[in-house]
């Protein structure tokens, strides 16, 4: 982690001065309720604590566990999960919110961990791929991915699993188009696409069979 000595204090004090100046104006402008107003503003002042740029302590709720770490405000949730919480299931592939390999669930909703500041994820339940199986038992989507071979190199797999897990919670029996819409934000380079759709449907209870035909060349006349 980066050394916490930092030169951000000038900015901090400057901004505080501005704020207090504004506070004064507000208080004067509302003389009749001056006391309440000042109290209310002071409460806000407390709530509006400026943090950074040096690392600050934050608490993330990851897979049901509260985890305390220290990160700079500029650290993304993805960076925090991988390099501070040491959960490497979410992958850094584009780091720009374009590929979905870093998808995690925030209160059950899929988001890109690379495009959210870690400190903003505080107070939300975060689910990563490591949190999908329970006591060694794969969840139905994971199970279907294995059975359908909905993976090749596996680098996009965690993101797809989370997108589909969230979809099935929302829509237990989606059709293929809904799977495509839910996974539009996930990319795969190996080309597992058809089997990801199959696996999603399979996890929702639809029976899926391979259409591949095998013909022995020797049997051809």
């Amino acid at each position, binding site marked *: 982690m*980066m050394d916490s000595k930092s030169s951000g204090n000038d900015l901090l004090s400057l901004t505080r001065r501005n704020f207090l100046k504004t506070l004064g104006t507000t208080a004067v402008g509302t003389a009749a309720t001056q006391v309440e107003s000042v109290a209310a503003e002071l409460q806000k002042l407390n709530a509006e604590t400026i943090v950074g740029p040096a690392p600050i302590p934050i608490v993330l709720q990851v897979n049901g566990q509260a985890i305390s770490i220290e990160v700079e405000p500029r650290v993304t949730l993805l960076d925090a999960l991988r390099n501070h919480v040491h*959960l490497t299931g979410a992958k850094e592939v584009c780091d720009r919110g374009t590929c979905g390999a870093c998808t995690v669930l925030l209160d059950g909703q899929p988001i890109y961990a690379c495009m959210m500041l870690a400190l903003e994820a505080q107070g939300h339940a975060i689910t990563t791929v490591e949190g999908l199986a329970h006591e060694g038992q794969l969840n139905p989507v994971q199970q279907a991915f294995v059975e359908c071979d909905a993976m090749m190199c596996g680098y996009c797999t965690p993101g797809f699993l989370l997108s589909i897990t969230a979809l099935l919670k929302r829509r237990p029996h989606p059709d293929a188009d809904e799977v495509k819409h839910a996974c539009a934000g996930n990319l795969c380079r*190996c080309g597992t696409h058809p089997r990801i759709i199959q696996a999603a449907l399979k996890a929702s209870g639809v029976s899926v069979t391979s259409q*591949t035909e095998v013909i022995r060349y020797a049997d051809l006349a």
Partner: protein
Amino acid sequence: MPTWPKETKYIGRHVQRVDGPAKVTGSARYTSDVQPEGWLYGMILRSRWPAAKISDISLEKARQVPGIKAAILVREGERTIRYYGEELAAVAGTSKQACLDALRLIEVTASPLPFVVKETEALKDSSPPVWEKSPNLSKPKVVEKGDLAKAFGECAAVVEGFFTTPVLIHHPLETHGNTVSWTDEGITAWASTQGIFSVRDGLAGNLNVEQSKVRVISEFMGGGFGAKFGPGIEGALAARLSKAAKAPVKLMLTRFDQSLAVGNRPSSFQKIKLGASADGKLLAYELDAYGTAGIGSGGSTEGGGGGAEFPAPYIYTIPNIRVSHRGVTVNAGSARAFRAPGHPPASFGMESILDELAVKLNLDPVEIRLKNDPSPVRQREYQLGAERFGWKQKYHRPGSSPGPVKTGVGCAGASWGGGGGGTQAEAQINPDGSLEIRCGTQDLGTGTKTLIAVIAADLLQLKPDQIQVRIGDTRFPPSGGSGGSTTAASVSPAVFDACTQALEALQNQTGVADARGDNWKAACKKLGINPLIVGGKWQPGLSSSGTGGVQFAEVEVDADTGFVRVKKITCVQDCGMVVSRLTCESQVNGGIIMGLGYALYEQRVMDSTTGVVLNPNFETYKLPGLADVPQIDIILLDMPERGVIGIGEPVTIPTAAAIANAVANALGVRIGSLPITPDKVLAALGKTQAAHA
């Protein structure tokens, strides 16, 4: 000669990927996930000039950033930069943020030089030379056969066309990178690679360390597609940073980096003339082609073509030909092998012009292929595929589809060599009956671990999950790089040999006549306290090279908006003896989808004025998504008598050509330029309004 068993329980059947559970739980550790004690981040500073003389690089301010433990130059002294993104320096630090801050404080003194980034500009005499001593445009490499002029004169039909294919970026989802620890004992490198031994040898040679002191590990890797064979400059930099910082350094490229400096598929510009007799027999072929492989092509490569060459007239045998290839150097990153190097552009040009000829001769495209394709296997594949696809019902005269949304069909064929060799494996049978198979190969996502488990399970009558497959470590018996669709054909016979020899040794040592299956545990127990380790090596007779495949595409083209939707691809592929059917089918899907990207979406875009890659991201370098993928219908043509053949490459070759032919069939006009984007469709239909002067 050894032979594969006729009756199998696992070989050729659907067996789940043995590392599937690891991949779906996030427990699979890729190079990017490895976090050895005390590790540091590494990052590279790249040139922001497409061409420049670098006179000085100062790392002093970067070294002052809190958390930075090392900062190094790629090369000491003055140097010339020849493309945007070339590596200049590298830093290692305790956080990503420290490294980012440090990179911005590195001071580079540079004098910009003239540059050229587009092929069409680089081939002009007036273009600035990328290399001082050699021209951008190479001398043509020419192959001639027969009497071309005479043959064209005798043809009943002659067609001409111009076809272009773009530079593609491999974009494996795991970027290139390594986590390297260099101590007095030697180097340990976790590498995202297609060749652990080539990385070992590359690092050893580059850093002047004995090969025995370099260990390369790649247990899981996130895709390569031909671009990940050596350690690369980034691998050597990670090692040097580790030595300087006295700590392990993880240096994974960013997606931006990935777009600039670690390989690409060369472009092609193909002027083709093709002639045939009235009954469609090909008689004459002429190709005048050029393309770029970046700074590593053109006059800079002595032999001519320079990296952008491709086989022509591809799979066809034509009595009279003239083929000319030239390479054009541009100020852009070098090409590297890209899934079936040379073949997809070759297939696109040849299969496109062949369809034009079929139209002119009023022949069905399947018919003209049956007349000319020399491969009896592909002949059968065309027949099988046409029937399954419904070709006769779906094919119509080009452009005759009514309404604004037009349908069309097309087909194309491909061949690939592959083959195996040069691999060893060892089996370790433990007294408790557990079995380990070790092989210094690597799994790119193709299912190599599964393949090994399936073979061992079948030969020893065990279950695949009873077998510990260990690969991706240079301490294991050697295997080659995973390229050219050779891994399955190299590894399978070695595992076969190790297993059969180990079984024989087990039986000899324990006196159990048949130690397989139900007798296994009892036999192993008789080993006493020492495990039995038996090596095996690749044997002839268990694998083959040479495979053929054909594909059919059905598309819908919206003639008002230019939007192309591929509805269906039917693929018929010769695959020898299939070892692992589930992962084999996944490979076919994968090849087709990569071909779909080539056909419709992908291209590196360079800017002439600034010299940069304009789309170093997934926002504007477009990969196919779930919504873009058609129904994929696969017929595997089994030839168990031929043994194991790799199919990773052949299945990606004909897809783009088949799609392009289907689009031409739908519209009645041909778009000879990949990718076939809506703007090109509307332009081909004459709807696009020209630019104001």
